[in-house]
């Protein structure tokens, strides 16, 4: 099967400081991929770059193929049709991701009108249907509410309804539950999984939380300092992590029934992006560090249907 989206050698720099240092990642139609890593490793930038959403001072190179069409050099009109129409994106803070001065019904209908070309009345009817579908309680009445009158979880449902308006083939959810409390988190993740199955939609779930990814995704890519360092099926990764960074993340994972926290308990900190080590970026923190690690950044090599970027990966 051909990948839906294929990132190749994707690099991003802000004012000469590298943020992404060569990302290779495929997303198959309908599959759910998790993207994890510590704050600042480039998870959001990867998908903002893919959709041409970064500010002008960002330099983006490499390749982003959507079923064979290159998006990086694509004209604005092509990108506008891809955004929301083929690849939709939702964000971490649903309250601030909505326009505070428009009613939510208007905002969902706007997305419906844009992507389905429906006239006003039909767009509102479809907007209400979408709000019902994402489990908005009392959707007909909530159409007239403003975002500040809804809870965080309800606002995220609105964002998801808007994302569905374009019937996208891929939904990129950038930490969709980080700002929500635990029970709501579980509901939203369940909703995403349900919708993905119902619409045959692929999902990229960006998260700090390996536990969340394990429940929701089939495959995981682990990022560190602007690169993917390990990629594998969820079960394989949890059973036998190959990259020392992944091992560290799993070691830092709280017990399954315990409270979830951010991934933070690997000693040391992320290297300064403007002064990267010459070799493996994780080397300064790595318990398995040997001299060969400092020669050049190790390539992401595939073995037994999974890949890792470590000289010592067993």
């Amino acid at each position, binding site marked *: 099967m051909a990948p839906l989206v294929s990132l190749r050698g994707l690099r991003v720099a802000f004012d000469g400081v590298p943020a992404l240092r060569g990302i290779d990642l495929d997303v198959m139609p309908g599959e759910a991929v998790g993207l994890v890593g510590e704050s600042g490793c480039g998870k959001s930038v990867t998908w903002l770059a893919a*959709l041409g*959403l970064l500010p002008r001072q960002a330099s983006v190179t490499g390749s982003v193929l959507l079923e064979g069409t290159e998006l990086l050099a694509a004209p*604005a009109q092509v990108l*506008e*049709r*891809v*955004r*929301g*129409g083929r690849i*939709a*994106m*939702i*964000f971490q*803070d649903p309250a*601030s*991701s*909505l*326009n*505070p*001065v*428009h009613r939510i019904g208007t905002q969902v209908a*706007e*997305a419906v009108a*844009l*992507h389905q070309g429906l006239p006003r009345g039909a767009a509102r009817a479809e907007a209400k249907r979408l709000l019902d579908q994402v489990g908005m309680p009392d959707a007909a009445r909530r159409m007239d509410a*403003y975002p*500040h009158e809804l809870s965080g979880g309800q606002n995220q449902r609105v*964002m998801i309804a*808007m*994302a569905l*308006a*374009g019937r996208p083939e891929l939904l990129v959810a950038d930490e969709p539950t980080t700002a929500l409390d635990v029970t709501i988190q579980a509901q939203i993740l369940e909703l995403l999984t349900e919708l993905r199955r119902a619409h045959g939609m692929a999902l990229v779930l960006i998260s700090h939380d390996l536990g969340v990814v394990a429940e929701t995704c089939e495959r995981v890519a682990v990022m560190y300092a602007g690169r993917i360092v390990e990629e594998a099926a969820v079960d394989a990764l949890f059973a036998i992590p190959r990259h020392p960074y992944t091992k560290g993340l799993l070691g830092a994972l709280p017990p399954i029934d315990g409270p979830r926290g951010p991934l933070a308990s690997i000693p040391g900190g992320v290297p300064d992006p403007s002064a990267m080590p010459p070799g493996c970026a994780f080397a300064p923190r790595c318990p398995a560090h040997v001299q060969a690690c400092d020669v050049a950044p190790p390539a992401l090599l595939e073995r037994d249907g999974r890949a890792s970027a470590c000289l010592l990966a067993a």
Partner: protein
Amino acid sequence: MGILATGLGQGLAITFGLFLLFGAIPGDVVDVLASAGDLDEAQQAAMRAELGLDQPAWRRFFAWVGAALAGDLGESQRFGQPVGPMLWEAAGVTLQLGALSGAFGIVLAFGLCLAQAAGSRAARAAVEAINLWSIALPTFCVGVAALLLFSVWLGWLPAIGGLLAPVVILGIDNAGQLAKPLSEEVAEVAARPHVMAARARGLAPLWLARWHILPLAAPVAVSLTGVMLAGLLGGTLTMELLFGLPGMGALVLNGIQGRDQPVVLAGLVAAALAIVLVNALTALVQGLLDPRQSSRD
């Protein structure tokens, strides 16, 4: 309601203040008339008594307010004509000049900021340019230059009574003051998460600017528009005198020179009430623009 009461109080306070101020200006209309002709002391005293100029300020204040509320603004002490029609005619000229230049300035400022919100860097540069222009060049100087260039040298515009030049000059001046803060607000709003989310939904830049950026930046401009319109009154005075337009500014200034109290009072009170009204309208529009503000009250 609160806005109305405040406005009314402000109007009365300003009017009384004007009475006191007027009393502080040395000389009155009788002095002016006496300096032109030959009135003896007795005639002057009789005239003052007839005009009520020998009364204390507070009495004249209440007499004036009472009459004004009944629709009688008195007679010009200098010309013997009723003040109402004089004021009405002059106000028409000033309102026309003010409305046209205000509208021109607002359209220009909002147009540039809309283009900026849609991603135009040229619009941003234009905002800087007209802002510098309006800070560096007083409308009086631009007016004189325009008179010299277009009327005297090129002979294109009538030097007296033409509206085009004053409207453009005042409009650009206002646009410059309004566009700069609006443009900064637009830049700030454009960086908010909901704009990124809307872009990620595939909305086109102009739509985004119109529906997701400008409405959130507009409140700052609306409050500035109030200040701007109030400032316009000053600007129109300059233009009226330069371009010989028979507006309120000219009327009041001539009135002050002639110590013609009823004309000056009526003119200034009308101007003050106009400013109070503009401020009240501004507050109202702001409430309408932002639903969070009205639900907070």
